[in-house]
């Protein structure tokens, strides 16, 4: 079938037919721009990039299907009705008819977003995948003051706080937290829920700076959606571990702003209720946690199995294989989870008043530790004998107990990222702690490994070997085997490094000898052929043997570039520029490091 005939100039095909600009879309939907914006945000419609921009480069283009999708949205009608009501209310108010205004305000149509969430995230895992921004935003608003002029209501801020606490409680309870990073911008957390890495940022618990150049309407629309999404996600997650949602909190603890702890109590209480036969145990005893975890994981795995069976047609030969693979992956996950769960297993922490309490109350239980704080409602007080670590962030600690260590909060975060209990020497009170490194950076790929990362790596290696002690090693010295082991391992690691260095040296030497040999072979060849004049070239050849090597490499690169097509050459050059940038950065870092070292040396001497 051929194409339909259209008169010239009226052709609507291809990109011209498929994409429309934003103003066209607004006109098409018969809404105003703010409403269009709101709809787009709620529905998750975003502009697209057509291959050919028919209307010009400076327009935003929407796909016609997206716009049609918006057009059939019932929310559009609700918004229109709402607008009508708002007009009526305005009129009533201007006529001083308060009663009518109030009545209209109450009758104003309301809308719910659950359908939209279901539509945008047909599966729970999709919602988890998109949770990063949602969490960051909710946590930010939980830390914001209520602003009347920006329509940030107290209720919303409280709701955000509640949702964020619920989320944190879940993560902490199920030991899903993996990485923590304290940056200047706030504290980054990374959790792994159902195999999805979810990273979010919580601002520091301080008064936030507000600037004028922010359109709060846009942010509030996003917040509206994000709040709803997080509520449903929380609900789902809570149900998955057999805890009723929404949690009912101890009002006393809530009043003390210890929501997280209240939530953990709630967890404990509900889980006790749900586990009928479980033994009465201590409040946040680790055995109980384990029990519950076991059951939930069991439930989960059953559920998964059922899902998989549903999804995979039974006649597919690979179905069973998939199942087996999945199980093995889960085992691996379990290994990781177990490590996280028992990191602070037998430690008891006490938080001083000046440390970031909320963050530590979240992180320490997430890694299996017990924690209390200074203030009302705390589970145990400072005088407790069993406290192993007290987290302190002040220049000096006046009264010290010998049975515990006084460390700075950074120690917790570094331990979490390294997954081992680090030595506390560097983190004691009053000392400048060692650098806090980002756990999100792949040092090898970056090309630069900070010193402290190396130390941590060594310690990790030592700790790993400690679990599998070497035969004969333990018998030698019973007094302090661990220390000795660590030392030995460090020594070994150093020896390994030295050996590697030696190997490299040998390789280099060999290369050099080879070159020499080549040269020696080359000389008689040229001398046998050439006469007196060749001596000139010969001396030249001798003068610059090293740059020659470089030049050969350079030449080879040059020559391969010569034959490339222009497009490929451009791409290659771009890659090279990127590599060079990275390299330059590393060089800069090294330079700075050397300078600092030199400065220190000069200071010492």
């Amino acid at each position, binding site marked *: 079938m051929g194409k339909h005939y259209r008169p010239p100039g009226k052709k609507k095909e291809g990109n011209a037919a498929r994409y429309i600009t934003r103003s066209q879309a607004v006109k098409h939907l018969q809404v105003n721009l703010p409403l269009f914006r709101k709809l787009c945000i709620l529905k998750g419609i*975003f502009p697209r990039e057509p291959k050919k921009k028919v209307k010009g480069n400076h327009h935003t283009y929407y796909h016609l299907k997206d716009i049609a999708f918006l057009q059939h949205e019932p929310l559009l009608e609700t918004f229109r009705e709402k607008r009508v009501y708002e007009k009526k209310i305005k009129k009533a108010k201007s006529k001083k008819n308060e009663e009518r205004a109030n009545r209209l305000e109450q009758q104003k149509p309301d809308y719910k977003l659950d359908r939209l969430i279901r*539509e945008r995230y047909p599966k729970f895992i999709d919602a988890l995948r998109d949770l990063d*921004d949602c969490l960051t935003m909710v946590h930010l608003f939980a830390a914001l003051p209520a602003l009347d002029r920006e329509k940030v209501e107290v209720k919303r801020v409280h709701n955000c706080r509640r949702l964020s606490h619920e989320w944190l409680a879940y993560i902490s309870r199920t030991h899903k937290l993996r990485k923590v990073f304290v940056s200047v911008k706030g504290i980054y957390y990374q959790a792994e829920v159902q195999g999805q890495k979810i990273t979010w940022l919580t601002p520091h618990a301080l008064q936030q700076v507000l600037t004028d150049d922010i359109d709060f309407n846009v942010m509030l629309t996003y917040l509206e959606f994000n709040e709803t999404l997080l509520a449903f996600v929380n609900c789902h997650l809570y149900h998955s571990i057999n805890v009723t949602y929404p949690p009912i909190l101890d009002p006393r603890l809530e009043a003390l702003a210890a929501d997280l702890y209240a939530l953990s109590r709630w967890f404990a209480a509900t889980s006790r209720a749900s586990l009928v036969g479980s033994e009465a145990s201590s409040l946040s005893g680790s055995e109980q946690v384990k029990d519950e975890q076991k059951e939930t994981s069991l439930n989960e795995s059953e559920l998964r199995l059922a899902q998989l069976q549903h999804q995979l047609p039974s006649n597919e030969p690979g179905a069973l294989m998939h199942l087996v693979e999945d199980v093995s992956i889960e085992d691996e996950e379990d290994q990781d989870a177990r490590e996280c769960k028992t990191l602070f297993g037998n430690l008891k922490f006490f938080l001083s008043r000046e440390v970031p309490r909320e963050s530590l109350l979240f992180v320490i239980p997430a890694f299996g530790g017990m924690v209390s704080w200074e203030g009302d409602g705390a589970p145990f007080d400072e005088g407790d004998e069993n406290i192993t670590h007290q987290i302190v962030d002040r220049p000096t600690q006046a009264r010290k107990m010998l049975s515990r260590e006084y460390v700075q909060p950074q120690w917790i975060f570094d331990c979490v990222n390294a997954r081992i209990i680090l030595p506390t020497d560097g983190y004691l009170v009053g000392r400048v702690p060692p650098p806090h490194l980002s756990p*999100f950076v792949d040092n090898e790929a970056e090309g630069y490994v900070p010193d402290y990362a190396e130390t941590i790596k060594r310690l990790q290696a030592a700790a790993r070997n400690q679990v599998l002690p070497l035969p004969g090693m333990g018998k030698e010295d019973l007094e302090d085997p661990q220390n000795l082991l660590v030392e030995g391992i460090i020594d070994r690691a150093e020896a390994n490094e030295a050996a590697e260095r030696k190997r490299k040296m040998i390789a280099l030497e060999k290369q050099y000898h080879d070159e020499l040999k080549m040269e020696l072979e080359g000389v008689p060849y040229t001398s046998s052929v050439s006469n007196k*004049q060749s001596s000139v070239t010969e001396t030249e050849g001798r003068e610059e043997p090293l740059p020659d090597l470089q030049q050969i490499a350079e030449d080879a690169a040059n020559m391969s570039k010569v034959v490339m097509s222009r497009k490929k*050459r451009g791409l290659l050059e771009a890659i090279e520029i990127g590599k060079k940038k990275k390299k330059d950065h590393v060089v800069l870092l090294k330079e700075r490091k050397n300078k600092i070292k030199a400065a220190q040396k000069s200071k010492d001497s």
Partner: protein
Amino acid sequence: MGKKSSLQDSAVAKHKHRHRMPEEEEEDTTKTTNTPKDTQTHQQLPSSDSDSDSDYNGEFSEDDGSEDSESLRYSDTEESDSFGDEGIIEKVNSDDVTNGHGQEEESDDSELHRAEESDSSEDDVAPRNTVGDVPLEWYRDEEHIGYDITGKKIKKKEREDKLQSFLASADDSTNWRKINDEYNDEVVELTKEETKLIHRLLKGKAPHADFDPHAPYVDWFKWDGAKHPLSNAPEPKRRFIPSKWEHKKVVAYRRAIRKGLIKFDKPKEEPRAYLLWGDESSSTEKSGHLAYIPAPKPKLPGHEESYNPSLEYIPTQEEINSYQLMYEEDRPKFIPRRYTSMRNIPAYENAVKDSFERCLDLYLCPRVRKKRINIDPESLKPKLPSRKDLKPFPITCYLEYRGHTDAVVSVSVDSSGQWIASGSMDGTVRIWEVGTGRCLRVWDIDDAVKCVAWNPVPERPVLAVSVEQDILILNTGLGNEEDQERIKELLRVKAPTSLDDSGGIASIVSWLQDDKHGGIKLSHFKTVSSIEWHRKGDYLSALSKKHSQRIPFKLHGLPVSSVFHPTRSIFFISTKRNVRVYDLVKHKLIKNLETGLREVSSIAVHPAGDNVIVGSREGKLCWFDMDLSSQPYRTLKCHPKDITSVAFHRSYPLFASCSDDCTAYVFHGMVYSDLNQNPLIVPLEILRGHRSSNGRGVLDCKFHPRQPWLFTAGADSAIRLYCH
């Protein structure tokens, strides 16, 4: 708090009054009852005071209350006065009540009173001015400052001149207390008490030290005295009977509710979360619309964003300063900072802004699914045959021919490959033995040589040299005797005959016998830039600056380079942009090769004749396959500077280009006899060794006719031979 303020005001007014009459102070204290003066005091109270007074009176119409307040007013300052004044104040108050608008009149009266009084009390002082509240400028030019009470002019005092007044003021220790009263044209000296008052006023306190602004409030009104209600009317009946109309309305509402016309709003319920993704298996339905492209996740923070990064991540102050010089786009968005403990971390100032920007990115940025560019750079490099398989080709410098004293411009190889000729800027043409590097012969031509070319026929070892406007054809004296004789004859005989034969050409070229060098001289009008022999050695093409209109070649622009087809009678001539291909027999243009280059510098033809390479000033080399199209088959960007010369090897599949960047590239250029297979071009070697002089590098390159050797002539006055 009208009362309190009025209290203060009265105090101020009192003070004003005192100020006006400093001498009165003593009198006040001595004479306790000075009735006219006190009336005046009361009259001077500001209007607010009188208003409040009148209100007070209006409401209660009882005089004793107001009297009391009045007494309070004065009690603080003049306790003794207050009781004596009573009667007069009463009189005034009643005046206020009776004629509320009689204020102005009264003030006039008071003015009168004051004048009189001042007369009586201050006899020694000059009479008071009565001009009233008018700008004093009006009297600036007059001799008087106003009129006294009797209507006489008050004369201006004599002005002291500045110096005197200054001296007087310098001597007088109380000068700071003196104020010039312009209205009365006199100098008033403030007393100590007055200065104290002023200080207190300046501090914003009440003028009198003993005044207590926070005195406990005493309610002077007797509340318990009122026994009777204001109205004595009995309660109306309607207060006791239910309203008929209200009843009707209630009935109507009731009916409406029963009929369902009025609906009550249900209390709004909070949206509750429920298991939205309850049964995951049912949610496999496919959404009808376009694919959702998830937004890219925000970048994860690196070490430098830590609150306590390693020291090396923190830029020095100089580096931070240097950021200011950068373009705003290049400037790093985040400058690492270091805090030694967590309690020192301040609030991040851009937290909300960052979040907002992320929101904007999410809904404003077009999203496109892009394939991650994760290409191994090695994979971009084309797969070329190994260089080892393409041997032999020139690799190393084997010989250097030295002797010229200036840049060697041109080099040419004898057809036997035994000799090379070279022309240089120093005005010499030399012939070298290839194997040994021995200089065989030198011609000293005074002008700079542009080009040298051997005759391609081995039996005719003749050399063509272009110098300025001439072309010299030289006998090299090589070859056996037979050849020599033939050449001598040729060179001798040829001259006159050709001159005779073509009289038309003579206008452009004149053939002359050159006895000095033993050859023929062809002089042109313009400088000759290059020479090229025909393959049979019979013809010679020379390019000069002048448009050679004789030839049936129509060129757009100046000819740059020319070359004969190696087998057929075809002639290539290149201008700056294009290469034109002519059939010499048919006198016809066959093809126009569009190079797409900015400025062509040299051209060479493959020995098979179907492929041409063109070198350009911008360092690009074009390979043309004549059978394929008139567009270049391949453009190689190899040199950063001008390509000065390109050359094909006669038998090996090699070609070379040399450039001003002191390098020569050797390529493998295989042409297959199969027409379907494109020529294979592989860069083989970069030959270095020449040094740059005057910004010029290698000026010419030629292949050895039999061996895979390359001769290069450099601007450093050397010729090099590169061997395999």
